[in-house]
């Protein structure tokens, strides 16, 4: 039960223990079939995203280079039909995977960095800075996500990085609170008191003792945040706030809705991007839950 909580401050022992812990966790994860399935689904999509240039010519995304007719049904040439500009939906789907994953990961990275720092500091330190940070977190938490994100998206303008920033800066408070509560409980543990008595400074204790112990939860939380970030990107794009010059699954759905996929019967334009979103979000959620069960002893023991 104590794999991830080294009781000695000796660096070497800690490191060795940690690597043992990671190995054990991987073993646990392997036994976690839903997490593995999530990993496989995710692996497939990551592979598609990375291999996009091999799978489909990027020129297929340009309206000026479109070869198909308007909203053609699936055929041997266009496996998933064409959009209103005659582009192959499959090509857009493959390249869209890159954008959707990229935005999801970048947004999560931003959210995690802010959330972890704010959470750690407000949990570990005492005094007005910590209290202010905690208040700030609470304040941000009460501003509804979507309206705030929409307004920020309008202010910053439409670009890929901006949309990631918008999602990142609106979704960190939940992470910060989680990290803070973890930090608070770790801080109370006796070995930290011992470390303090042995002369370890605040910075040392925070980075060497608290952070490593919080990291697993951060990691689990990260995968769940990616899921939410990808969903958010899809929604913002659907509302027309995505990067108009890039094709993501969300912007495809916006296009399909705008062109009247229901009226024109072009299910091939409306359904596949949605299924991709569901699968990827599901994959991240499954992995995240598996990680949570592994890293959170309380959850694992049940």
């Amino acid at each position, binding site marked *: 039960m104590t794999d991830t909580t080294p009781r000695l401050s000796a660096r070497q022992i800690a490191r060795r223990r940690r690597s043992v812990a990671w190995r054990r966790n991987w073993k646990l994860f392997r*036994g*976690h*079939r*839903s*997490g593995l*399935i*999530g990993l496989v689904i995710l692996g497939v999509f990551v592979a598609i995203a990375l291999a996009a240039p091999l799978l489909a010519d990027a020129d297929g995304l*340009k*309206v*000026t280079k*479109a070869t198909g007719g*308007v*909203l053609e049904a699936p055929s041997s040439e266009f496996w998933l039909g064409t959009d*209103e*500009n*005659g582009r192959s939906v499959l090509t857009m789907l493959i390249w869209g995977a890159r954008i959707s994953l990229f935005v999801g990961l970048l947004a999560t990275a931003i959210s995690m960095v802010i959330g972890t720092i704010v959470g750690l500091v407000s949990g570990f330190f005492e005094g007005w800075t910590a209290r202010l940070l905690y208040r700030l977190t609470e304040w941000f938490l009460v501003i509804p996500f979507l309206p705030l994100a929409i307004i920020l998206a*309008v202010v910053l*303008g*439409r670009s890929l990085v901006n949309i990631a920033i918008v999602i990142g800066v609106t979704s960190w408070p939940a992470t910060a609170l989680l990290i803070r509560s973890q930090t608070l409980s770790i801080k109370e543990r006796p070995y930290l008191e011992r470390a303090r008595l042995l002369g370890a400074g605040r910075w040392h204790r925070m980075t060497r003792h608290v952070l490593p112990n919080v990291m697993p939860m951060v990691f689990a939380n990260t995968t769940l945040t990616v899921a939410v970030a990808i969903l958010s990107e899809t929604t913002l794009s659907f509302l*027309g706030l995505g990067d*108009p*010059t890039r094709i993501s699954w969300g912007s495809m759905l916006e*296009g399909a*809705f*705008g*062109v*009247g*996929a*229901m*009226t*024109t*019967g*072009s*299910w091939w334009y*409306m*359904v596949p991007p*949605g*299924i991709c979103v*569901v*699968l990827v979000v*599901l994959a991240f959620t*499954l992995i995240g839950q598996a990680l949570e*069960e592994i890293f959170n002893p309380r959850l694992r023991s049940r």
Partner: protein
Amino acid sequence: MAAATTALALGVGLATAGSLAVQPAGAADDEPVTFNVAFLDEVDSFNPFNGFQATSYELWAMMYDYMIGYSMEDMSPEPALAESWETSEDGLTWTFDIREGVEWSDGEPLTAGDIAYTYTRILDGGPEAVNWGTYLTSVETATAPDDTTVVLELSKPNAVLPLLPIPILPEHVWSEVPEDEVKSYRNEPTDGEPVVGSGSFQLVEGTAGGSTYVLEANPDYWAGAPHIDRVAFRVYKSEDPAIQAIIKGEVDFVDDITPIQVEALQGREGIYAQNGVSPYFEEIAFNTGAVDTETGEPLGDGNPALQDPAFRHALGYALDNERLAESAYQGAGVPGVTFIPPFYETFYWEPPEDEMFTFDLDRAGELLDEAGYEVGSDGLRTMPDGSPIGTLRLFARDEEERSQTIMEFFQEWLGEIGIESEVSVMESNQLTNVILEGNFDLFHWGWYVEGDPDSILSVFLCDARGGSSDSWYCNEEFDALYESQNAEVDDEARIETIKQMQEIIYRDSPYLITAYTTTGQAVRTDRFACFRPQPDPGGVLLVQYGAFNYHFLRPADEAGDCDGVESAIGASESSGSDDDDGGGVALWFLGGAVLVLLVAGVVVAVRRRSTADSRE
């Protein structure tokens, strides 16, 4: 849990009851005939001094009358409340004979006094002048010497008159609304009392920004009672549901749909769908040299090459309007030439054959060479002094999807003649600011053109810079011609001047016109008939200039020959057979959902088993 079950059962019960409640109650004779219209934008104000949306203009036209309206053929001035008019020799005095016996919906008589009152309010300035002031340019006073005469005194001749599409408001109601309360006066039905008007319909239900508006026929309308009892507007926030609504028969008319949707609807029985000609052109505009209007200093960071008319004109040969009409406009646009749409035949000008823009990249290259923009060693064209031109910024509008497509095509064609460019997309608001700050090179937008070209001509005036001019174009020759046409009372001479002005713009090319667009509309012809297009033929069926069709249309079984108007969309015209492909689609949608659920179910089933195993 019992609570949830009950709630669910209640929901189902409600659903059934609801659906029964709304089924048409048979063809009972006393059932009022309601014409249901789906719009994509709401009314932003029922007060004609406040609103800006096209929907608002549409409803004002139904609620009120004009003194002079628009003809259906070509939107030229046509008698409405005024039966006839005459001008003095010098063109400074206009006298209108007003129809007798017209009444407001509350029984008060509508007289020349109401008209003079409305115009005077606008002439006084203030918030009332914002929407309507331009129609009364150079009008000094509007008076009513008696109940059937309106006299306008002008300071100088105004060629736009007698076009006066200003809703005439009842003095006995509006005299109680002082100028400082105009902005907050809502002009909506109160306590079940309809808004007092004189139009063919009166507003009985609706608030600004609301989602439904109901208007009831005015049985005492001076041109005769409408053939239907009510018109109900319903605002849909997206096109697809609106189209589904017309397919299901929840609405009888849907406005502003895409050419693809028009095509999808054309196959359906009982529905007539068309891309109606609308007086709208779209253009690629250049930053011809933005200046601070007060100091005259250059403003912004526009590319200097674009300040040369020869450079701009050469690019006209690098624009394949045929191709754009086919792909970007989805086959529903007409390749553009000049800024006056061709159905305004009187004013439309076309360049001689040999000067007409054709898609000819070689020609564009030659013209650029001649003007000194030669290809450098890196394959890119340079300024006449040899410095690089740099990258032109092409701005597209976010609200119009085709805008981006058009700019992407243009970017490619520019690349082929050795000019680098990049496309970016922004919201109209943002683009407006960028234009006013002069921080742009090219953008794509469009203009509505009224029956009289005066207002579109004014867009190219030096004085319009920093205001309605978005190309920062300034040419004294053009300005002088504008003054002369505006004061010219001889029609022939004026038309000649206006054609000359189009020639100048064509030559100097502050705008390259990409297309004259159409508006997609669909109507349930199995339920209603007699929609006369405006312009006739080929025009739109509703959202016209004026409210003619609401008065003219009738239930399909009473259509007859539509009073002999041959161009009217009648009951017999609804197009051919229909294959119901919508069914397959929805099944596919559901199939997708079910599939996903199944996949997930399996995933989790497997997962649960595995964890259960490891646990026990």
